[in-house]
């Protein structure tokens, strides 16, 4: 069954149309990279998919049910969302932070069950922050914090995971690691939609890439077909080297076009 569907969706922010004409369907098990220049509407698209902003027109549905008719808590359990540049307002420990991802599963009194604890431990191990579990978030480096926040989003065991630029502050090793985590989440049957800027990582790991430009879908399909030199020139205004290493693509932006 289609996990997430957009039908002719437009979204306005402060009376300005930010994204429009979005028609897409996502299946469970896909790992979708959403790419595009700054201001092309990626985050707005993600927020709409998470049910945080209403569509001005068109319909968004999750597992066949209109997004607005989901009960808030059920939606929280089904759709995990990791906002861009995640904030943590109090110096919680990493474990307490990751446990917040279990909130939609918790009972009225927010007591953590053994199931919650297991999910939290799994997520911390997957994101390589288990050794930081008792450290306050305030003393972590930017990258460690980003991994802890990714673990928070994973801990919910959602069937749909929407991650808005989770790699921005990660070193190359942890970028690859985080991408592998998302990949195995998708392999386990979840739909994973991730906003990212690294062309090679998208080409090598995603099962599908969506290019956005000026609030619309510019291209949608298999990474090799979508991340073509023609598309990169049109969408990003860059000439890119597109090569191959060990049978997988390598893409490097070389120069800006005037």
């Amino acid at each position, binding site marked *: 069954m289609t996990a997430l569907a957009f039908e002719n969706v437009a979204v306005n922010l402060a009376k300005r149309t930010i994204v429009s004409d979005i028609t897409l369907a996502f299946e469970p098990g896909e790992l979708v990279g959403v790419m595009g220049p700054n201001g092309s509407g990626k985050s707005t698209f993600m*927020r709409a998919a*998470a*049910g*945080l902003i209403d569509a001005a027109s068109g319909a968004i549905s999750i597992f066949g049910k209109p997004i607005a008719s989901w009960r*808030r*808590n*059920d*939606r*929280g*359990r089904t*759709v*995990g*969302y*990791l*906002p861009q540049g*995640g*904030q*943590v*307002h*109090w*110096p*919680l*420990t990493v*474990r*307490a*932070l990751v*446990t*917040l*991802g279990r*909130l*939609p599963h*918790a009972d*009225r009194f*927010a007591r*953590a069950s053994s199931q919650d604890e297991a999910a939290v431990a799994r997520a911390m191990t997957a994101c390589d922050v288990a050794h930081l579990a*008792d450290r*306050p978030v305030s003393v972590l480096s930017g990258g460690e914090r980003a991994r802890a926040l990714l673990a*928070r989003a994973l801990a*919910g065991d959602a069937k749909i995971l929407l991650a808005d630029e989770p790699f921005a502050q990660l070193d190359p090793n942890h970028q690859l690691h985080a991408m592998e985590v998302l990949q195995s989440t998708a392999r386990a049957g979840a739909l994973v939609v991730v906003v990212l800027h690294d062309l090679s990582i998208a080409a090598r790991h995603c099962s599908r890439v969506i290019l956005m430009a000026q609030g619309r879908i510019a291209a949608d399909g298999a990474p090799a077909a979508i991340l073509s030199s023609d598309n990169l020139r049109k969408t990003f205004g860059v000439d890119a080297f597109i090569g191959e290493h060990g049978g997988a693509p390598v893409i490097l932006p070389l120069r800006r076009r005037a």
Partner: protein
Amino acid sequence: MNESSLVSGSRLAATLAIATLVAAGVSLFVGYAPLPAADVVGGLMGDEGTAGVIMREIRLPRMLLGLLAGAALGMSGAALQGLLRNPLAEPGVMGIASFASLGAVIAIYFGLSSVFPLALPAIAMLGALIAAGLLSFLSGRDNGVLTLILAGVALANLAAALMALALNLAPNPYAVSEIVFWLLGSLKDRSLHDVVLATPFVVLGLVILASAGRALDALTLGEDAAKSLGIEVASIQRRVTFGVALAVGASVAVTGAIAFVGLIVPHLCRPFVGHLPSRLLLPSAVGGALLVLVADIAVRLVPSGPELMLGVFTSLIGVPFFLWLVFKLRGEMQ
């Protein structure tokens, strides 16, 4: 959650509760009339005579109001800080208590409270509600320290100006001094009648605030992430605003504004509960009650001629604390 902070969190609540009980007991033994212990107990148990009058009409209401006002201010501070994600939020500093005072002054000034006793807490709560509503509206999505403090300063000044106007128009000097003294905040000369008037609203407010814990935890991650976790942010804003208005409004209506309790107590408790907003609510209520009781014992013991007003005393401790906190936060933000 973090086990070590959980353990120390419940130990903290238990320790504070015991200390509060002790302080409440001590509070009954402290007063201007020297009463032997037997008379204190006897007076409470319903003895006739002077001891009975002193205990049941002076010391018991004073102690109960201390508990009530302290719990209201402590938990309100913790909840507001969680909602606004800002450790400087506090009913007094943010002008909420000033608006409650303004409401109470209006009720007293126009004589509404003498015709209809419930008008006093009702109008004070309305004042607190207006201020808390304006505050969450003004600080809105941007929860920067600056916006919040400026909004709070604006509200507190507006309330002060309107109260000055009321004083200005007051019919006689006696009314002026009555209002001024009342504004300073005190547990002195209150009756069981005041306790009965305030208790239901304070308790209701505290229950509402206590129910917001989970949502306040989620707000740690910002509004978008909280919404994605199934929390309705607008409704939690309304709930906290309303809870604070009930608790602070009702307690200010009978005690006047006791400043800084809601600032100091949550801040001191926070490290013991792993900084988790939900776990901060109860210890802050108990700690607030303890602080007010201890401060109220202190003002009775300090030989200052006329009794030091409780609100003045807490401000004297609170202002340096507030400045220290601002200084510390400024360091952290750089």
